[in-house]
């Protein structure tokens, strides 16, 4: 949903470089920073601490459901990994697959809008509006729209069965296919916009130079266009992968999933809000966040992009 940022700002990868060197040291800086930083300390950092504390809690003896006390029960982590390993694995594989699909879908589109439509500012603006248009209508309703189009009695299932692509009695909804489809669809704009932002600034003279030096068009693409759009690819994959790994709408039973497609988000929601097993929900959240931070830092280091903000 960071579309405003990408339409307005330079690509995230270079945003920091665009800042002129900060010049002054002053008390004013402290006054400007303090409210926001304190706010994030209280409502972002403190909740993480509280999550860590909760993850080690133990049930109160003879207490009601949902009553826990401070403890250091690290076994909570073992227990959730044992119980929910398939869900954790599913989250990361679905998210990785959806990210790869969104990249393949988005790159040509972003290239067309950012490079080919440069000569037509009006069409370029129109195409950008169409890319962000899904953001203006409820995420949940869009997902439900796909569910209804994929329904067993819908025309799509009928058509696929007629041409024998789908066996009789098979479903589209509630399958890994529909969940990955939904994740891909919902996060495509997050992938397209940052890639567009880097391709829009691609200097076409580099490609002409490559052509003059007898590089094949495919060579020029892989050795010039792709490396120069790498910051956009990195931001796009992160903006897709992170929310997709934690998502629980697409995989939910009432949307595109079933109990067999439940992801880690679904389990955290169920444990927290339904079963009131707060320590299990908290330890799963900590594991999810740790895994994402490790993966993201490894990825960012490998791709050589440093400034993300």
């Amino acid at each position, binding site marked *: *949903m*960071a*579309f405003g*940022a990408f339409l*307005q*700002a330079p690509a995230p990868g270079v945003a920091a470089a*665009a*800042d*002129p060197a*900060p*010049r002054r*040291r002053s008390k004013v800086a402290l006054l*400007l920073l303090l*409210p*926001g*930083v304190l*706010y994030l300390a209280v409502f*972002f950092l*403190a*909740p*993480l601490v*509280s*999550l860590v504390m909760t993850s080690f809690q133990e049930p109160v003896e003879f207490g009601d459901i949902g009553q826990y006390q401070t403890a250091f029960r690290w076994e909570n982590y073992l227990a959730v990994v044992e119980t929910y390993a398939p869900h954790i694995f599913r989250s990361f594989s679905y998210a990785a697959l959806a990210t790869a699909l969104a990249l393949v879908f988005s790159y*040509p*589109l972003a*290239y067309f809008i950012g490079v*080919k439509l440069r000569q037509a*500012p009006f069409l370029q603006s129109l195409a*950008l*509006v*169409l*890319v962000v*248009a*899904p953001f*203006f*209508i409820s*995420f*949940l*309703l*869009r997902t439900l*729209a*796909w569910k209804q*189009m994929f*329904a067993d009695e819908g025309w799509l299932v009928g058509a696929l069965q007629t041409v024998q692509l789908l066996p009789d009695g098979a479903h589209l909804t509630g399958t890994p296919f529909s969940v990955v489809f939904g994740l891909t669809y919902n996060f495509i*704009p997050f992938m397209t916009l940052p890639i567009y932002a880097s391709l829009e600034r691609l200097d076409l003279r580099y490609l002409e130079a490559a052509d003059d030096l007898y590089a094949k068009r495919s060579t020029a693409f892989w050795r010039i266009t792709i490396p120069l759009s790498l910051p956009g690819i990195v931001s796009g994959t992160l903006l897709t992968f992170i*929310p997709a*790994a*934690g998502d*629980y*709408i697409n995989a939910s039973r009432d*949307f595109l999933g079933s109990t067999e497609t439940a992801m*880690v988000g679904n389990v*955290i929601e169920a444990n927290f*809000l339904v079963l009131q097993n707060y320590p299990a*929900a908290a330890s799963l*959240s900590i594991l*999810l*966040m740790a895994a*994402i931070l490790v993966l993201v830092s490894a990825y960012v280091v490998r791709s050589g992009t440093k400034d993300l*903000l």
Partner: protein
Amino acid sequence: MRGLGRYALAAYSVIALVFLFIPIAYTVAFSFNDSRRSNIVWRGFTLDNWTSVCQAQGVCEAFGNSILIGVVATVLATAMGTAIAIALVRYRFRFRAATTLLLFLPMATPEVVLGAGLAAEFLTAGVPKGIGTIILAHTMFCISFVVVTVRARVAGLDPALEEAGRDLYASPSQVWWRVTFPLLLPGIVAAAMLSFALSFDDFIITNFNSGAETTFPKYIYTAAARGIPAEANVIASAVFLLALVIVVTAQLGRAARKRRMARS
């Protein structure tokens, strides 16, 4: 061969954009469905859902809550985020790297973790969940996006303009209100719109911190099991059309500016 390749890319892009639009068209179309109880099968065109939106129980109340939460969270996040953006560009201070990390982390944390964390904190502190806790949660995740958006605008601001103001004996508050603020305004407006959009459509964090209160997305989530009333489609479609008008106007202005710049 080259010509053919170009048309293939154009054709692909058109198909891709149409594909992105399918669920939107579906949602808008079904706001006109003569659905009576379940809005799954097309039963004919009607305007009834549009003329009596609030008939479906609770839908208008949920929508009103979402607007209230969105407006308050946007004002809070935009004020705090803009201040941080100015400090980051204009001043030197210690713990700069730590501050940047603190702003980046909420955007890199899955929503389910943000939601569960806040819920755990409210639970431990004994804070009852409701509209207030939803506003606190939304303000938190909007701040970073405001900083990213406004920061680019501050960086592009020519400090000479403010110096000129000071040279002409303007007081600091006059410089801010007459020079800096008007120049930053487009960035601040963009950030506020982004915040509102993020807040209005948020479900995951809201679900953990709303208690018995309903927002528009939560209403849809709860209703999904038994079927969404067409009135929800009406509200979503109306919001969509309004947002589209705003963005198209802004983009047309941008395209016109670009063309003027290209000509001169």
